[in-house]
């Protein structure tokens, strides 16, 4: 099992390196550059050339990539091209904001979705099961920004119950913080719940069709006990997988939600940086997103290995 996990870690590092290559190449092929974005309509060939030299944009791409990669390996994400402040100093506070919102949503969405999924499995084919399925599908079919706007209209503009801006700042009270971030949290809960709920239901039901569950029923156990004690633990691996996949989504996929609610997380940071063509900032944000995604998927895989006896003892597979 240790070798398996080590292999998975190596693969994770390799993926991260690939991400760095893709991020760098991707930002290279964006049309226009920071010099053009800074100068806009004031761009004349001379002023563009002068600014490019000043910003070091005329060095070969490979040299700039190696310099950047070297920096990342010891935590230096470079300097913003627009105001020469370190990217890391600007980026980490925004990253923790995104993490805080993701945690708020995750803490509510995951237990809720898993328990509703188990409940739906226990009530297979009955009203609750159908209702939960239809509601989950409906919510996951709506784009986040649309859901966000609907909630703002209903809970903020029309009624004034909650603020439409997720306006948070350092030193604000905890109650204010929860109030400000409740609307974006609700949207994130709605879009992540569906997948976890359906996956939980399906895996639990898959286990329920196994012969040993039939045995449990034949022993005279009640439905609820069979689902909770016998089926669910054996369905854990795929559920953990889909949960960590959704946590990764919460962290990396919140760009739209942050824009709709004007939440100052890493997503909005990245949108700002892209529109200003501030490439070190874009690259920094992209690599942090990439690392979070790779890391969470790696944790999911390792957890799946640890929870699955067949993966723990791969040679016993054929037996």
């Amino acid at each position, binding site marked *: 099992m240790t070798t398996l996990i080590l292999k998975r870690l190596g693969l994770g590092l390799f993926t991260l390196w690939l991400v760095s290559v893709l991020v760098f190449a991707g930002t290279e092929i964006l*049309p226009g550059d920071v010099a053009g974005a800074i100068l806009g309509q*004031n761009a004349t060939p001379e002023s563009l050339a002068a600014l490019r030299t000043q910003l070091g944009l005329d060095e070969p791409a490979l040299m700039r990539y190696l310099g950047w990669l070297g920096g990342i390996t010891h935590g230096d994400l470079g300097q913003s091209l627009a105001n020469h402040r370190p990217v890391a100093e600007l980026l980490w506070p925004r990253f923790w904001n995104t993490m805080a919102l993701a945690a708020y949503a995750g803490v509510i969405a995951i237990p809720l979705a898993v328990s509703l999924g188990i409940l739906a499995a226990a009530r297979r084919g009955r009203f609750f099961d159908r209702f939960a399925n239809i509601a989950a599908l409906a919510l996951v079919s709506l784009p986040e920004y649309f859901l966000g706007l609907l909630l703002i209209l209903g809970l903020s503009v029309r009624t004034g119950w909650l603020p*439409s801006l997720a306006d948070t700042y350092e030193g604000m009270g905890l109650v204010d913080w929860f109030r400000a971030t409740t609307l974006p949290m609700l949207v994130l809960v709605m879009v992540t719940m569906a997948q976890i709920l359906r996956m939980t239901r399906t895996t639990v039901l898959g286990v329920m069709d196994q012969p040993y569950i039939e045995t449990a029923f034949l022993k005279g156990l009640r439905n609820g006990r069979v689902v909770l004690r016998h089926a669910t633990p054996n369905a854990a691996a795929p559920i953990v997988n889909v949960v960590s996949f959704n946590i990764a989504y919460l962290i990396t996929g919140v760009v739209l939600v942050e824009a709709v609610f004007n939440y100052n997380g890493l997503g909005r940071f990245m949108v700002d*940086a892209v529109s200003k063509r501030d490439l070190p900032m874009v690259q920094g944000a992209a690599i942090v997103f990439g690392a979070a995604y790779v890391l969470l998927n790696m944790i999911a895989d390792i957890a799946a290995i640890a929870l699955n006896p067949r993966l723990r003892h791969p040679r016993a597979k054929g037996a």
Partner: protein
Amino acid sequence: MMNLHSMTAISRRGVLAGGAALGLLGLSGRPLRAEATPTKGGVLKLGIGGGSTTDDFDIRKLTDWVPVNQAYMVMNGLVEIDADNTAQPELFESWEAAEGAVEWTFKVRQGITFHNGKTLTADDILYSLNLHRGDSGSAARSVAAAIKELVKLDETTVKITLESGNADLPYVLSDYHFLVVPEGFDDWMNPIGTGPFKLERMEPGVRARFTRNESYWKPGCANVDAVEVIVINDIAARTNALMSGQVHAINSVDFKTVDLLGRNPNIEIVKSAGGQHFTFLMDCTQAPFTDTNIRLAIKHAVDREQLLTTALRGYGQLGNDHPIPKTDRFFNAELPQRAYDPEKAKFYLKQAGLDSLSITLSASDAAFAGAVDAAAIFRTAAAGAGIDVTLKREPADGYWNDVWMKAPFCMSYWGGRPTADQMLTIAYESSSAQNDTHWKNARFDSLLKEARALLDEEKRREIYWELQQIIHDDGGAMIPMFGDYLDAVSKKVKGVTPHPMFNLMGARMAEKVWLDA
């Protein structure tokens, strides 16, 4: 020597407000509509689009709306453009020009202190202006390049010698980069100025809070206790924040949704007519636009009324194929408005020896919001005049590098300039790097230069009228419309006026308004 400032101000005011206005000379920032006297107190919350994580208060790099508005809270300019588009004294208290408008002397306002207690002197102004001169990387470098020599005559007098005469120098000095900081100052994250508010804290690209400068010098200004700026770049989020009462005012309202917002009884739409205009650029050095007849055919093949009502929902003015807005004192009011006339367009095509014409128009919403729609509307109207327009949608990214000034026929815009001379110089003078139609007209160039140095208003007016006529008849830009600047403001905010320069009262809303108690 004569006092140019008093002269122009009196003649303008004479028209607008009668002799009683004389008493207001030197008192800038008075509200346009007489409302109750300002009351002190409250926290003004502004939701502004156009900010980023890298914003600071470096006066050389003010490029977007959040930093510009914030800079005006902390600092003062040298000259202020008021709501009537007239130059008013700010830290320069008065000015005089010698004949020829090359040599100028400015008096520095007395008794002004910076937030750190230092008294304002001519040295601070010299230092602040010099930040933009030479190889400074300032966005106002090209404007400051007109200054040949900048010297202090005594503690309260500054002398500016220009490269060549410019009667509009006070207007030129109203540029929002020409703000004043103490001599030697360079800590752009912790700004010190003479402005109405002091920075309390800022999280760049997110929010900032300012508190009142209790000893602010402008009467009737700095009324609110504090100002909170929340950066909201997304237009929908900005609109929602105003509707749900989280902010008092927002800038750059979308033309498409402004009518919906205006129906809210608690919200007022502030529309400011100004110099912002939208252009269809014909490159006069590329076929077929080398022929004036073709350019005139295009100018007659557009339905301006329809463009204005559809693309801008009526929030603008008709354009007459020259860039001077109605709000400018040199606007040519006698030039007949060009209308949609397919027959005339066909006539000009014939003059060019053609029965029909096929052209490609490059369009992107990078030019202005709604540019692609506007191009499609033009296409339909042009078809009626025998002109077949192929639309080429360009990516918004890199539009200014790759399409603008390169494609033979493309869409663009210009923000307003404080003076007719600046607008005509930047976009139409042969030698300008941003002459975006590559149009060259020797008579235009020499007249423009002549008018710039004239101190006689009437003679200048005659020349500017002719310059507008020349562009209207010969220029490469088809200019169908001017777009208003749109803000939306809660009715709790008092003292709000339209302003011809920019959104949010020329970026000085925080200084002027007060909150209903």
